[in-house]
């Protein structure tokens, strides 16, 4: 857990402590605790500086290594980077693209982060996202036109969250019941979730008006998340920011959030201290699954409007990485999700502008992640 201190602390000038006559002759140092505090602050600033420096070095290292890789492939690194940069920063679509892509990714990252606080490993975001979409689509089918669109929309989102939560609960249930690590079961259940969704879109939920395409029926406009202004940003993006803030608050300020941290730190000690570890674990995973499920429902109601075989494909795993990149701290996870989304958007440029194979962006992402994971952040105890 981070223990670094704030940057915005008002800086008490050095002159205050050492003497302000400007003559260069320092008056004898006043109360010792002020100078201790000062040097502590200086140490903090230094630490932050080192941290930033390390991150910059990591990024620099990534740029160099990736340049070597693509040079071997015959691409000009300078041109490639220039095109990459332009595609992210000089492209009027990029900001919106990144925001739209980051929205489910942030939630997918939080879906990993919340259980991680309790020491649980949730690799099942992929499946929980899908089940969230499935539950949302199912709710839409069940309600049909019986209720006003806005009400149905709320129900869709709730159903999505609930679906994801229950799917995740399966794994933690198996852990408590049979001792299987949830990292294995969540992973395996991803495949089951995909097969369930494929079954639905190819058979009972297949849209009869879609000329044979395997998709579910599209949501009527009244049940879709409204778009803000005349752009492409839909209400789900704002909703995600709100949820992000709530999650951060809950983890930091509530006793539940605190209890999760205790269990995550040392489950055995927590048990001995009288905490009910089982229910805490279940609730942590439940919340994680709910977040992923919500992401699925938001993507359904805000972007895709129907289920299809490649719905949110890959977001679960990238969300897992985002959570680690952000060290399971909600705001940092969000920042990581935005970064990774920007990388994917940049990946388009690698392909379209530089002619590299589509999967090249994976190399860039991997090198960056390894550099950041391996060379920045606190040194852990051996």
């Amino acid at each position, binding site marked *: 857990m981070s223990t670094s201190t704030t940057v915005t602390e008002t800086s008490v000038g050095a002159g205050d402590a050492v003497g302000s006559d400007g003559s260069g002759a320092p008056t004898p140092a006043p109360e010792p605790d002020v100078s201790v505090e000062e040097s502590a602050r200086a140490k903090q600033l230094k630490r932050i500086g080192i941290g930033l420096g390390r991150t910059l070095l990591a990024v620099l290292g990534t740029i160099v290594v990736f340049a070597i890789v693509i040079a071997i492939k015959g691409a000009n690194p300078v041109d490639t980077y220039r095109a990459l940069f332009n595609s992210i920063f000089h492209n009027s679509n990029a900001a919106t693209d990144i925001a739209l892509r980051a929205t489910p990714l942030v939630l997918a990252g939080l879906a990993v982060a919340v259980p*991680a606080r309790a020491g649980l490993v949730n690799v099942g975001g992929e499946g929980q996202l899908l089940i969230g979409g499935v539950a949302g689509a199912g709710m839409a089918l069940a309600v049909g036109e019986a209720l006003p669109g806005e009400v149905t929309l709320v129900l869709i989102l709730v159903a999505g969250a609930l679906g994801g939560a229950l799917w995740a609960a399966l794994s933690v249930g198996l852990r408590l019941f049979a001792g299987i690590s949830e990292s294995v079961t969540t992973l395996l259940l991803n495949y089951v979730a995909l097969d369930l969704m494929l079954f639905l879109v190819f058979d009972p939920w297949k849209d009869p008006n879609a000329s044979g395409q395997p998709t579910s029926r599209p949501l009527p406009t009244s049940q879709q998340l409204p778009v803000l202004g005349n752009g492409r940003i839909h209400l789900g993006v704002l909703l995600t920011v709100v949820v992000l803030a709530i999650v951060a608050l809950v983890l930091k300020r509530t006793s539940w959030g605190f209890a999760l941290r205790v269990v995550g730190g040392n489950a055995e000690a927590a048990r001995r201290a009288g905490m009910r570890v089982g229910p805490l674990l279940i609730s942590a995973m439940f919340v994680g699954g709910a977040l992923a499920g919500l992401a699925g429902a938001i993507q359904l109601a805000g972007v895709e409007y129907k289920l299809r075989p490649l719905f949110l494909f890959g977001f679960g*795993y990238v969300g897992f990485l985002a959570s680690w990149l952000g060290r399971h701290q909600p705001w940092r996870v969000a920042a990581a999700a935005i970064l990774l989304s920007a990388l994917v958007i940049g990946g388009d440029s690698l392909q379209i502008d530089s002619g590299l194979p589509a999967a090249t962006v*994976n190399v860039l992402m991997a090198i960056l992640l390894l550099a950041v994971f391996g060379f920045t952040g606190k040194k852990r105890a051996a």
Partner: protein
Amino acid sequence: MSFSTELMTGAVLGGTPILYAALGESISERAGVINLGTEGSMLVGALAGYAITAESGNPWVGLAGAALGGALLSSVHGFFVLWRKTNQLATGLVVLFLALGLTSLFGVNYVQSTINSFQTIDVPLLSKIPVIGEVLFQQTAPVYVSYALVPLLWLFLFRSRPGLYVRAAGERAQVLTSYGRPVRLVQMLAVIGGGALAGIGGGVLSTAYTNAWFENMVQGRGFVAVAVAVFAARSPFKVMAGAYLFGGAFALSPLLQVRGVGINQFALDALPYVLVIVVLTVIGRRGTSPAPEGLQAVFEGGASE
């Protein structure tokens, strides 16, 4: 061929790549390092195996190259996990992405190639035994090698000094250090060895089983190998059983379809994964074999921040 014979044959055929990778992963896990990047090592091995066979004309040389490729990739994982202390699961996934990207980048030219793939070899005499003969002794050479590899690995783990070190690194690292043995080095070697075996698994996939190279061709079988290694890490024989179980579960779908059995294709696709969860639950309820202590820490999330 009867249904059950075909099923068992398919189990061995499809289970062998998983077996190699799972054996490798089980050694790594014994030493306390889980490598989700096994899928990546298989991918690198698949490409290296195919490409080097295409260039050299000899699939055994290709397999050697596959082992080397898999080992190189897993050494990246080992370096970051053991020396930079990064989280094992996250690093494994990142290494997988790296492998996906690199094999795509450098494998482009080999999609069109044809190679001298491994051919089925009928073992004289043994292959004539009813049922067992068809299932076990009408396979390709790497499959036969895997038969020998399983007991050899058992001997290595349980009857040799290096194997003892590997097990100690995962279960009682303090013992190793108190005897002056370098724990990290042992772990790194286990990870590299595991990667080499996973690479061979991938090589078998491309040069013996499917006779092809396509990007991302492993399609999740590396994850399956990790799952098998997790629940069977105690013994290479259990790993073999698990690998064949999965191989059979994957082979089941086409076998049933060809016989006109009307089970939904997606239900059949989900079957292997559901099956493994059931097996894990049964094993778990019986309370047998928890993972080695070092591995427990990874799963408890306590191995890192």
